[in-house]
């Protein structure tokens, strides 16, 4: 399932509270085709004038056949919403909700195995394809520009930072994907790198990583083995103090590989152009594209 190459992009929004409703409007403004909403107590109502709201995902799917599900449901109920959308066979699910219990996501992750659904997030800004006028999530539509650079990031707001830099320099984006900051999530750097590799519109890739975990190393390996397009990367957290919250056992598992320097070394070794400061991402891409 390459989320970049879907022909049809009908979106269902689940969770129409304050944030969900506000963001739904922003998506529609951008041009996204939102076909239905789901809310347990607003069944039968409509939003944004004429978009129908259903009481359950199954009903919404039956009546409006969405290909993408966007979740704004509050954290205590979000894992259940993801499972509801998986059970309703929605091919792509974007979960914006932050603060979902880890144990819930462990189960969702296990449940997803062998299923065809692709989950992006949780705790992510979703994705946006300027050219298709498709915005699924909360990436501000005002800062993007259609073009040929694919952006992928673990961090929400930092993604916007990178997009702003690119757009200011006149460099457009083929797609921007925020995979989310939670340790257990549905889509990894590797998954998105593969999608960009496959996507004809994408000519270069920007990847923004963070300290912690080993996802950036996995990405470096994949870039080395099978990504032919040029990659610019930045890793934030080089000056961050050692997290007091990180328990001992956590440190045992990831050890030194969680450090920014280790990640940068792996990426550099894979031929990635490193932006030493996150403010230089745009310039590095410009440099890369000129050389090319």
């Amino acid at each position: 399932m390459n989320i970049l190459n879907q022909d049809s992009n009908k979106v269902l929004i689940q969770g129409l509270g304050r944030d969900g409703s506000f963001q739904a409007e922003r998506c529609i403004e951008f041009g996204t085709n939102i076909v239905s909403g789901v809310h347990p107590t607003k069944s039968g109502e409509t939003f944004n004038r004429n978009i129908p709201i259903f009481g359950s995902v199954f009903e919404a799917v039956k009546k409006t056949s969405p290909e993408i599900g966007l979740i704004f449901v509050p954290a205590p109920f979000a894992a259940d919403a993801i499972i509801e959308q998986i059970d309703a066979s929605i091919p792509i699910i974007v979960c914006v909700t932050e603060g979902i219990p880890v144990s819930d996501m462990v189960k969702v992750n296990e449940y997803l195995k062998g299923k065809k659904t692709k989950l992006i997030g949780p705790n992510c800004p979703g994705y946006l394809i300027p050219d298709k006028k498709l915005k699924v999530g909360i990436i501000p539509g005002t800062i993007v520009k259609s073009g040929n650079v694919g952006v992928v990031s673990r961090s929400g707001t930092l993604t916007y930072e990178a997009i702003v830099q690119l757009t200011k320099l006149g460099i457009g984006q083929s797609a921007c994907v925020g995979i989310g900051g939670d340790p257990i999530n549905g889509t990894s750097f590797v998954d998105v790198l593969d999608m960009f590799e496959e996507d004809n519109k994408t000519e270069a890739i920007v990847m923004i990583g963070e300290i912690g975990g080993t996802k950036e190393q996995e990405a470096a390996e994949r870039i080395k083995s099978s990504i032919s397009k040029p990659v610019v990367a930045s890793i934030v957290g080089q000056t961050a103090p050692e997290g007091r919250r990180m328990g001992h056992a956590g440190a045992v598992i990831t050890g030194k590989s969680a450090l920014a320097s280790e990640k940068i070394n792996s990426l550099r070794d894979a031929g990635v152009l490193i932006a030493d400061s996150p403010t230089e991402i745009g310039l590095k891409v410009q440099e890369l594209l000129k050389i090319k």
Partner: protein
Amino acid sequence: MQLHEYQAKNILSEYNVPIPFGQVALSDSECEKISSSINGKVVIKAQVHAGGRGKAGGIKIVDNPLDAKKVAQDMIGGTLKTFQSGGTKFPINKVYVEEASDILKEFYLAVTMDFDEKCPVIILSTEGGMNIEEVAEKTPDKIMKIHVNPLIGPSPYKVRNLLSSLNLEKKISQQISNIIQNLYRIFKSLDCTLIEINPLAITSQEKVIALDAKITIDDDSIFRHSDIEELFDETQMNRSELKALRNDLAYIKLDGGKVGCMVNGAGLAMATMDITMKAGAAPANFLDVGGSASEERIEEAYKIIASDNDVEVILVNLFGGILRCDVAAKGIINGFENYNKSIPMVVVLRGTNSEDAKLLLENSELDISFAEDLPTAASEITKKLKK
């Protein structure tokens, strides 16, 4: 959310994990009383939210109830600062009074979440009582792991195979095996992120017992554990941290800096820190207002930052997504008006409703410089600091 040793041990006991006899004391006389019910040596342990208590003088062994009383007198009401507490002095309000155990051997045992494998993991090491990070670095082969399928739980065969590699007596490995299963039950039932038993001791009577216990609960799961929420000890946090916690804000105090930072998103926070540090301006604190803060929460955030006496300049770097910049601006203005402390600010606002926000701030009485981007903001900050 972290539990005290005595709270963790209550839970262990409830789930049939053996612990030495012990009780919590709130006063020196209580400590004396509990000690007199114990034959032999008594261990007195300060109940604070920090590891490394032993080296810092937070754990004492005494021979008799009178000495126990004296130790408690010293500890209770005092504070403890350990090499693991990050500079913080934790107040000691309670001590745990425990019978001393006759130890033959010490293990390290933990259950936590392995984020790479996306499943719980059980960690066992023969190097108990040590700093486990050091063991992992120097002798990684002494760290053994069992990955747990969340559907099945810790497969007995995996536990058996792991323990059989240690060549323990059957009696001992049977006890450890039961403890592992019971710890996992706790881990699962209480949505823990960490249960750490260090050391897990084999006594001279061939009993396996948990001598120390650390339990951390996933903050995001507390909503389904109201009984655990009641165990929260707010005295173990400083006022600002506590205030941040109560308002769902992520706040970190840093040593030696002068810049108070308000950002949204952990990634942007780290980037902000990287950039300001490079510009020569160290942060005094960091406050991440998160994804969708309300006006009230932003107001609290401003107050927390402003109340830090180290802060000479405030850097606000917000990128509206779910968060709306206009809402944030109102919160900051309210904070300023209600707290009434004027600190120069450098503000970078982008994304959702950022233009409205700038207008609001411009029309306020705050001492504000706007910056278009982070590098500009960083140099603006250094300028203000030099003044």
